[in-house]
Structure formats: structure tokens, C-alpha cells
């Protein structure tokens, strides 16, 4: 099947000054100033004013809200509702715009949004990674070295917040947006404009977080604990706005995914024939929809504490910091699985292709994903084991936390048994998936120490817990993120990535990832708390080792970046439609996938894992009825 409609290409001036990123930025800056001076006009001149050392929080919040609204108007998000209100007929014209301009504006083609997400999130991922390099540079010496205490904490906070907020959509943004409609045999997402909105909201959020440096940064790390939060300078407002906007983006993304998967599956695609990746997306999306609103709520209370002098979280005003901690972790622990579950799903999706065997124990794998989703709601107080809240609930949270390793174990046994007696091909995506087993295993086993209260008394808040969650998130999510890039980017862009550079990237990343984070377990065991810029002289050798390894890890990322730019911008070697001999439906389509995905909506007769069970079934039987859409 081929693309049938030649995309409409408006004249060049229309592409530059229409509703696009450029007008979005201009109106965004305009909206920022309207909010800033508007809020000053409202609260009067008696409060802080522009240029003061500490800012009027209300103006900061109103400025950024004005900026975001202006940005979205400039991108054209109000065009559709305005046209409908004025009586014009509805249209999806955004989807028909062709050429590169699609990528710099509101586009309702799910494949364009997926690629926008890939580059957008990649940009902030590299900013976050650069922060990590600077943190490790400061930690080369046990005493204060380069950055002031405030700058160091801002780097720590920006690294954590950027990574958590952005990488929450790290798989669902690029890959689920691109692949889920194709995998379920649909031509679009259920809510295409909402899909575009999630991306542009996240970009606005990322820009806001970056501007925290102009307001003095923020000292709280990614957790934003009260009452340090309310004590902090105006840079804290950028944190609150970032996470709240990222939370809105996540909620909408999750809703869109659930609606799409539940309602838009092609005929024959029963729940038990769904690709496991779609199951992973569904469970992650349900976590997003339910967890992110809690984050938005708790940050709204923080914003009120800061801007309107309420005292939700200040003991001196009758509030409690425990309220913040509980609400934050009610979001925060499902958030951890929002990061981890897509990784599980990608591993299980890719292993059958490269082991040439069906996914072993499909139902058990689904049960594992759903079990983790359910249990992740019942474990949040393990972040508060020594905080002094509800001492008698600790055995329950210890049990529930350890129970979650049972469904996680399902993923392991299904993945491992898929390899059993297979025909394993060590391609670059496969290598990243296999590394997941090792990394996530170490992350999980160290998690057992943290879930055990007596052991947690020593390890809590130390570098041990820091090493633990880097093993689960970087080892679990980022490795599978790269697996997904090497596996699907040839399909998404139509160009191959260089395999040799890919292998060099994998091996340097795997070696230096472990060399960076394994010693951190020891450093944590040896009494180094998280987020310090001063540590014991006896730990200098280990810290220097970690720093040097981290720089090598950073270099490994540059190899990847070079590969991406070199292969996609210069070499441009066309990718074949099915480079991995996969049975999945997206690889039965041409590369890149045509604008409307399918000429005819396919009819499914099996899951995509029938390796060794005969030829690929005919996805599009002749004379099949045209589907929905």
C-alpha cells in the first residue's frame, strides 16, 4: 500500500508567518509580559516590583500562564474552536499540510507528533544529561569546587525534574503516539488535537523550567519538599509551573491513549491479540491519568502557599509538611512505574523479533503489567519509612512494596523464556533489551534493600537509593528508549541508522553506565547522603571514579547523537520496509509510513508473535470492509 494523497504545500511565506512555532514564541513572549505587568497592576505598587531581588510570586505565575496561553494561541490551538463558534464547518486541515513545516506547528498527524516528541524530548534529555555532567564535575573534589551551593542544588534539581517530567512521556510521547494507532489498525488517535496539545504543553513546560536560572534556581531537588519549597526564591515557581504543565500534558496523553486503545482497535484485534507494547502503553496511560492530577493538585497548593500566603504545608500556620509528602508520593510512586512500565513493554515487544520465537506466556506478561499498575498505588509510604508518619503502617508498606516484585518477576520469566531455545540475533536494539535484564535486576535487588525497613534506615536518602533508581530508570527506561530508537526510527524516518556506531554506543553506554552507578551503591553504604556537594575525604577515590565514568557515559551519548545526525541528515541510506523481519504490522507498511497509514483498515486474525508458526497472516484481506474513520 502506498500514500495516495500528495500533501498540500502552502507558499513559503504562509509557512513562516502562519500559526506555527515562530508565532507561538512571539505571542508567548507577549503573553508573558501581559501576565507580568497585569499581575503587577492588580496587586498594586506596594508589593515587590520588577527588578527587586525577590519577585512577587503572583506576577511570576501570571507571567508564565500568560506566556503559555499566548504560545498556544500562536500555535493555532484556538483556531478550531473559534471557527466552530463562528459557524464554519469542522476540518482537519492541520493534517494535510505537507513538508518540514508540519514539524514546527500544530499537526494532528500522530506520526508527526511522534517525531516532534522524539526530538523535543531528546533536546531536554540532553539538557538534563548536561546537568548531570556538571554535578559530577563538582563532586570531583570532596569540598566546594566550582559551583556555589545554590547553583549546585539548582543543577541537581533541574537534572532530576527535567528527567522525571520529560521522560515520563519518553516512550509514550514518541513511540506510543507514532505506533499505537498503527499497531491497532487505526488511522489516527482518538483526539488528534489533544495529542498535539500534549506535546506543545510539554515543550512550554521545559522552556519554563530552563528559565528558572533567571530567577535564582530552586533548592529542593525534584521532590520539591515543603516547607523548603515555600522558603525558596522565585525560581521555585518555575519548578511548580513545569511540573503542573507536564502533569496536565501527561493526563491528556494518558486519556488519549486509553480512549484510542479501547475504542479504535481494528476488527479482529481482540484484547489477547494486542501487541504487548500496547498493553504496556495502556497500563502506563492509566497510571498517568490517575496519578498526574494528584501532582497538579499538590503543586496548586504549593503555588497558593507561595503566592497567596496560605499555609497548607507550614506547621507554624497549622499545616503539615506530611500532607505534601503524602500527596507528592501518591503521585511519585506511580510516576516511577510510569517510567518503568514502557520499558517492560518494549523489552517484551522486541525479544520475540530477535529470538525468532513467540512471546512466551503472553497472558502472564499482561498480568504482570496490570499487577504492577495496580500495586504501584499501594506502596507510596515506603518513601516515608523514617519520616515519622504512621509507624504502624510500615509493615504493610514493606509487604506491598515487596509484593510488587511478583508481577515484575512475570516480566522477567516471560522475557527469559522467550529467549529459551530461540535463534538469538544480537542486533543493536536486542543488545539494549538484553542489558535491561541485567540493569533492572540490579535495580530490583537493591530495591529489596530499600523496601526492608531495617535496611532502609541506613540506605534511605543516601547515594544507595540514588544508585537504585538510576539502575531502574536509566537502566530500565533509557536503555529501552534507545532500543526503541534503533528499532523504530528507521521505520519512522525511512532512513537507516549506522549499525557499527550503534554497537559502539551500546557497549560504551553499558560499560560506563555500570561503572558509574555500581560504585554509588558502595558510596551510599558508606554514609554519603544524596544531593550534597561536600563529602568525606575517604570517599574521594570512589567519587572521582564515578565522575570519570559519568563523563565517559556522556561521551557515549555524544556518539549516539553523532550517529543520529550523521545517519539521518547526511548519509540518508533508505531503510527497507522490514529490516528486522518482524511480524508486527507497522513493519508490513512502507517506510516511512504513508500519511493515512492504511488504504483499508486491516482485519486481524492473530497476535504479531507467530514466529515459527507459518507465514505472516494477510493483514488486509481483499474486499475487507473499509473501517471507521
Amino acid at each position, binding site marked *: 500500500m502506498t500514500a495516495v494523497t500528495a500533501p498540500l504545500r502552502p507558499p513559503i511565506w504562509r509557512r513562516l508567518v502562519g500559526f506555527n512555532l515562530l508565532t507561538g514564541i512571539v505571542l508567548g513572549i507577549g503573553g508573558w509580559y501581559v501576565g507580568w505587568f497585569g499581575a503587577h497592576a492588580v496587586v498594586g505598587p506596594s508589593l515587590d516590583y520588577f527588578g527587586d531581588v525577590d519577585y512577587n510570586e503572583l506576577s511570576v505565575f501570571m507571567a508564565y500562564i500568560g506566556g503559555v496561553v499566548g504560545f498556544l494561541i500562536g500555535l493555532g490551538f484556538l483556531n478550531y474552536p473559534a471557527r466552530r463558534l463562528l459557524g464554519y464547518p469542522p476540518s482537519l486541515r492541520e493534517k494535510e499540510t505537507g513538508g518540514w513545516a508540519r514539524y514546527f506547528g500544530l499537526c494532528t498527524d500522530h506520526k508527526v507528533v511522534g517525531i516532534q516528541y522524539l526530538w523535543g524530548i531528546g533536546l531536554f534529555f540532553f539538557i538534563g544529561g548536561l546537568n548531570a555532567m556538571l554535578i559530577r564535575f563538582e563532586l570531583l573534589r570532596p569540598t566546594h569546587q566550582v559551583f556555589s551551593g545554590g547553583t549546585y542544588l539548582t543543577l541537581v534539581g533541574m537534572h532530576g525534574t527535567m528527567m522525571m517530567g520529560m521522560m515520563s512521556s519518553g516512550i509514550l510521547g514518541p513511540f506510543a503516539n507514532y505506533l499505537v494507532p498503527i499497531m491497532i489498525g487505526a488511522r489516527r488517535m482518538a483526539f488528534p488535537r489533544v495529542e498535539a496539545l500534549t506535546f506543545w504543553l510539554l515543550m512550554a513546560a521545559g522552556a519554563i523550567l530552563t528559565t528558572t536560572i533567571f530567577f535564582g534556581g530552586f533548592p529542593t531537588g525534584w521532590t520539591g519538599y515543603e516547607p523548603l519549597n515555600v522558603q525558596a526564591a522565585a525560581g521555585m515557581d518555575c519548578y511548580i509551573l513545569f511540573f503542573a504543565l507536564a502533569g496536565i500534558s501527561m493526563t491528556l496523553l494518558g486519556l488519549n491513549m486509553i480512549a484510542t486503545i479501547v475504542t479504535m482497535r481494528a476488527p479482529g484485534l481482540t484484547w489477547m491479540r494486542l501487541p504487548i507494547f500496547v498493553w504496556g502503553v495502556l497500563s502506563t496511560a492509566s497510571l498517568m491519568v490517575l496519578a498526574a492530577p494528584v501532582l497538579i493538585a499538590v503543586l496548586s497548593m504549593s503555588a497558593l502557599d507561595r503566592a497567596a500566603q496560605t499555609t497548607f504545608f507550614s506547621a507554624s500556620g497549622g499545616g503539615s509538611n506530611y500532607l505534601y509528602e503524602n500527596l507528592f508520593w501518591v503521585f511519585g510512586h506511580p510516576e516511577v512505574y510510569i517510567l518503568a512500565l514502557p520499558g517492560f513493554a518494549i523489552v517484551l515487544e522486541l525479544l520475540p523479533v530477535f529470538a525468532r520465537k513467540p512471546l512466551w506466556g503472553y497472558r502472564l506478561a499482561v498480568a504482570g503489567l496490570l499487577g504492577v499498575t495496580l500495586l504501584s498505588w499501594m506502596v507510596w509510604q515506603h518513601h516515608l519509612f523514617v519520616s515519622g508518619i504512621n509507624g504502624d503502617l510500615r509493615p504493610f508498606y*514493606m509487604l506491598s512494596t*515487596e509484593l510488587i516484585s511478583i508481577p515484575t518477576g512475570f516480566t522477567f520469566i516471560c522475557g527469559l523464556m522467550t529467549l529459551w531455545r530461540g535463534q538469538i540475533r*544480537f542486533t543493536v536494539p536486542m543488545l539494549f533489551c538484553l542489558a535491561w535484564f541485567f540493569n533492572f535486576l540490579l535495580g530490583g535487588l537493591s530495591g529489596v*534493600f530499600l523496601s*526492608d525497613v531495617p*535496611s532502609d534506615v*541506613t540506605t534511605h*536518602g543516601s547515594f544507595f537509593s540514588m544508585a537504585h533508581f538510576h539502575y531502574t530508570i536509566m537502566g530500565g527506561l533509557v536503555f529501552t528508549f534507545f532500543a526503541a530508537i534503533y528499532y523504530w526510527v528507521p521505520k519512522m524516518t525511512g532512513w537507516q541508522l549506522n549499525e557499527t556506531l550503534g554497537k559502539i554506543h551500546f557497549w560504551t553506554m553499558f560499560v560506563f553506565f555500570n561503572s558509574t552507578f555500581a560504585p554509588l551503591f558502595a558510596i551510599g553504604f558508606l554514609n554519603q547522603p544524596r544531593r550534597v556537594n561536600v563529602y568525606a575525604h575517604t570517599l574521594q577515590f570512589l567519587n572521582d571514579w564515578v565522575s570519570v565514568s559519568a563523563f565517559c557515559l556522556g561521551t557515549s551519548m555524544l556518539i549516539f547523537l553523532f550517529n543520529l545526525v550523521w545517519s539521518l541528515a547526511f548519509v540518508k541510506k533508505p531503510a527497507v520496509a522490514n529490516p528486522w523481519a518482524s511480524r508486527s504490522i507497522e513493519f508490513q507498511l512502507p517506510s516511512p509510513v504513508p500519511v493515512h497509514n492504511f488504504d483499508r483498515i486491516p482485519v486481524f486474525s492473530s497476535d504479531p508473535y507467530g514466529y515459527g508458526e507459518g507465514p505472516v497472516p494477510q493483514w488486509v484481506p481483499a474486499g475487507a470492509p473499509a473501517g471507521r474513520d
Partner: protein
Amino acid sequence: MASQPTAATPPRDSVNHGLRFVVAWLVLSVIATPLVVIFVGPILPPGSMTTQAHEQIYDNTWLAAVSTPVLCLVVVFLVYAFVYFRAPKGGALVDGPPLREHAGIQVVWIVITSLTVLMLAAFGTYQLLQNGSGGGQGPSPVAVPAGASHNLAVQVIGQQWEWTFRYPSFGGVETHELVLPQHTSVTLHVTSLDVVHSFWAYQLGVKADANPGTDNVAYVQTRGPGTFQIRCAELCGLFHGYMFSTGRVVSATQFQSWAKTQEAIYKTIAKYVPPYAKTYICPAAGTSPTCSPQPTLRGG
């Protein structure tokens, strides 16, 4: 589209892969687990200065021992699969046998992981409820060691960015060094004057968050004498990294003389220090005589 591989199932291997893998795993686990217990266990934190710390070592050793066979399982499996199930280089694309599931393996796996997990949770709960394991338990602790009402009480006050200690049984004397007598049961009351801190006395095996307006109780039973490190384990602002100090466990007579000296020094300044209280931040400013109104945390 790449050519679809022939669905020819490779001939059944003459060797019993399953048996060989299980034997390799068991042998490695049986060798590795005692080695971990013997050589890694003793170097696990946090030391034996208190009963709680000693039991944490025991706990950590147990967890390391249970983790070792799990690590061996996955690593041996992966290595075995890489060696025996690798597709021949340059050969035609061949599919593996279409094994979709095996009820027996699934049941065994679920039963073993569930039993392991339940055993770990029961073990951790037992260890925790014995004496609280040195963790902060809040104002109404549940894991109380026997005879705790006769304990030496010490208050730990966190503020940006230093630790202060008060001894209510010595007239509320306030010091900057934590000194404890050996072979004594101690009740630590941890609180904060401003933001959340976390009191981490490493060698004592104690960690308890210092929350404004909350009395967070942790129990510890000291053993032999020595010095210990104190750090703040919860990000508390600009000088979080500098918020450390040291403490000593000394003999009972040394402790008595030290406390008497501190009390004498303290008498001259006692009137400048707020009287001893469980917490120093009152819900509504000025409602309690022991609780002076707090300045607002944030100006403007």
C-alpha cells in the same frame, strides 16, 4: 519486506538444556551464596556500635544472601542462552520453536517468587517490631523496646544548617555534640525548627526525619564506646552538604561528668534559651507558653 523465514522447526537438541541450566544455576548459587555471606556480609553497613546497627548488618546480610541466587539465576540464564541459542552468523533466518507457554514453569515461578517475597516481608516485619531498627517512628511509636520508659531521653533539633542536642534529664541542657553513655537504651526525639531535615547517625544505625512541629521518636541501645558521624539525609537548602557533625559513645562515668560540666556551663545561658519542649513550632502563634511565635518563614 524481508523474506519470511521457513517455519521449519530445528531438530530437537540431543542435550537436555533445561536440566543443564538448572544444575549450573544451583551449583553457582550454592558456591556464591556462602561466599557472599562470609565475605560481603561483614563489610555491609553500618557497624556494631548499637544493637540496632548490629541487627541492620544481620538484615543486610540476609537480603544479600537471598539476592545472590536471584542474580545467579538471571545471569546464568542469559549466558546459557547466549552460548547455546545464538543464531549462526551469516546463516539464513530461521525461526525458533513456537513455544507459547508452559503451565508448570509459570506455576513454579509464581509460587517460588511469592514465597520468597512473603518470607522477606515477614522477616523484615519481625526485625522491625523487635526494637524499631533505629528508624524514626513518629510521636506515637509502635515498635518499642522493653523498658523504654526508663530510657535516657535526648532531643535532636535540626535547623538550617546544624544539629543541636538537648538532654531533658539534665535540666534541658543544650549542646552541639551528641554524647551517649555505653550500654544504655536511648530515646531520641527528633524535631526541626524550620524545614525537613533527616537525622542520620550512621554508626548508630539511626535515621529519623526532623519535621517542624513533630516529635519523631527513634530508639537505640548503645554498645561499646566510639565516635560516630552525623549527617543530614534530607535536602534542606543551601548548606545541606555542610550539615554534619560527630558524636561519641563513652563510658557511664565519663558521660556523667561530661553532662555535669555541660549543665554548669548551660546554667549561665539557660534564660536565653526557650524551655525544653517536645516541639518548638506551635500551630497558632502564641497559644502555648512554651512555644514562642515563629517568625514567618518567608518575608513579604
